[in-house]
């Protein structure tokens, strides 16, 4: 049974006003095309969760999609600050909820596992917990010591970009895995954006590479270059020039709006966006080839 659909239809069907959205990917595989489609569809009042908000949430907040941010590191990776988010928080326009990376990922681990909480070792840093009542303590029954715990995070919808999947949504990822798998299992609905839709025989040739099974996937969208300006390991490089440029663009509301007008509202879909970037960018971001050596599963 195919779950193939367009990204536009998938967003319309599965992302609703007010939802808690987790667009995942640690530096790698960030589903920019899906964020842009949410902006184009004018979906509002979202709670946006991501360990690392990155440019994608800066842009979604600039476009007025969000009421709240849940995060653990709010930076423009390798560049500096995320100016839109920072100013929205400093001005009190955006609500937020904050963790360390381990707190954030532990919430996803609990959500994905159907567990009531996850324990964490002490860090001695109590200021964040003092502002976030989701940090709680339980008593370790073996030692009597206090143990910090966080509750499950179960987003309404996760958006996850992967290198290859079949039409049922069995998905394979390599390179940095981040929170891709946990976000998928933790969420009520999963939109998969896929660099390559492959025959199921490809998936079945290497079952250990599958980190998300079709059974938890709601929609499969074939969206090559979905992750630009972040990257997809083996398909294209990170567009560091755009990360640097965003640091300038995001300095004023006008230049942010001009960027959104040109690159989000001004294009109907990712295909047009990618073509608009032009052959020089395509060449600059090409990945080259470095193949894994095969393994033998045996013909039993």
């Amino acid at each position, binding site marked *: *049974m195919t779950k193939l659909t367009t990204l536009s239809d998938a967003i319309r069907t599965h992302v609703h006003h007010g939802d808690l959205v987790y667009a995942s990917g640690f530096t790698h595989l960030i589903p920019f095309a899906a964020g842009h489609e949410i902006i184009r569809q004018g979906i509002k009042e979202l709670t946006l969760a991501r360990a690392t908000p990155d440019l994608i949430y800066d842009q979604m907040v600039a476009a007025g999609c969000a009421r709240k941010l849940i995060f653990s590191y709010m930076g423009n990776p390798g560049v500096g600050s995320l100016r839109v988010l920072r100013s929205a928080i400093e001005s009190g326009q955006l609500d937020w909820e904050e963790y360390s990376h381990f707190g954030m990922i532990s919430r996803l681990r609990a959500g*994905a*596992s*159907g*567990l009531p909480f996850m324990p964490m070792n002490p860090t001695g840093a109590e200021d964040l917990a003092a502002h976030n009542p989701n940090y709680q303590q339980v008593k370790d029954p073996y030692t009597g010591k206090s143990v910090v715990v966080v509750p499950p995070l179960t987003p309404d919808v996760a958006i996850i970009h992967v290198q290859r999947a*079949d039409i049922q949504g*069995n998905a394979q990822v390599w390179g940095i895995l981040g929170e891709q*798998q946990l976000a998928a*299992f933790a969420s009520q609905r999963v939109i998969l954006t896929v660099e390559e839709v492959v025959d*199921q025989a490809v*998936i*079945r040739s290497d*079952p*250990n590479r*599958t*980190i998300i*099974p*079709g*059974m*938890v996937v709601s929609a499969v969208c074939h969206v090559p270059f979905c992750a630009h300006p972040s990257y997809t390991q083996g398909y294209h490089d990170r567009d560091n020039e755009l990360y640097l440029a965003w640091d300038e663009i995001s300095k004023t509301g006008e230049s942010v709006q001009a960027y959104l007008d040109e690159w989000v509202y001004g294009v109907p879909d990712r295909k047009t966006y990618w073509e608009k970037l032009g052959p020089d960018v395509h060449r600059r971001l090409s990945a080259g080839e470095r193949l894994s050596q095969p393994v033998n*599963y*045996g*013909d*039993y």
Partner: protein
Amino acid sequence: MDEISYNPQELMVVNAARLLKDHDVVFVGVGIPNLACNLAMRTHAPNLQMIYEAGVIGAHPARLPLSIGDPTLVSGATAVCSMYDIFTLYLQRGNVDVGFLGGAQIDQFGNINATVIGDYQHPKVRLPGSGGAMEIAAWANRCYIITPHQKRRFPARVDFHTSIGFLSGGDARAKTGVRGGGPQAVVTNLGILKPDEQGEMVLAAIHPGVTYEQARENTGWPLKITEDCPETLPPTADELYILREKLDPQRIYI
């Protein structure tokens, strides 16, 4: 029409298969449950998804698997994950529709003992223990048990709760906070037991040619019988053909 003959194993496999729905995600062991799932897939439930506690999802075995970790389950599967992940991401998260359970004893309320006969610390007979059963019984949406109908296997109370059905009945199961619905059917060679409103396992269907008396005699508690208690449809020629010729041609389990 000629009578079609079949043995008790075939009868149980066929009736268990019919309980499965298309698109069910099934936590399956080897042997009879594996045959039931494969039969269902080849008849009314082509989209059934089989997962194994060894961490295999969407197995396409080229031969009859002889253990829960048979390599034929892996080659050509859609996914493989670690043991921790199969119990958390799949089972505990609520992604499993059906679990199959078994054990030395099944009692009046569908509780199962696969651990010990006699005292735990000084066992008369030491059995294998829980494996995945304790959690499967609690968290799969529904569970099925396939077992020969014998009085020693059906005591009123099990010696040890390896995995629970409805405990002492009533709201006892609900009070534990487990997410799954518990044992929905016990398929035997005499008929099918299902839980009544109190969670007591009662005779809900009877196989052709079996008497109520036989069922009662082979049960360790006063077996109730549902008002209608229909007769099950005998295995069809098609079902038996698939089972005998395709699934277990060496007759290892049937």
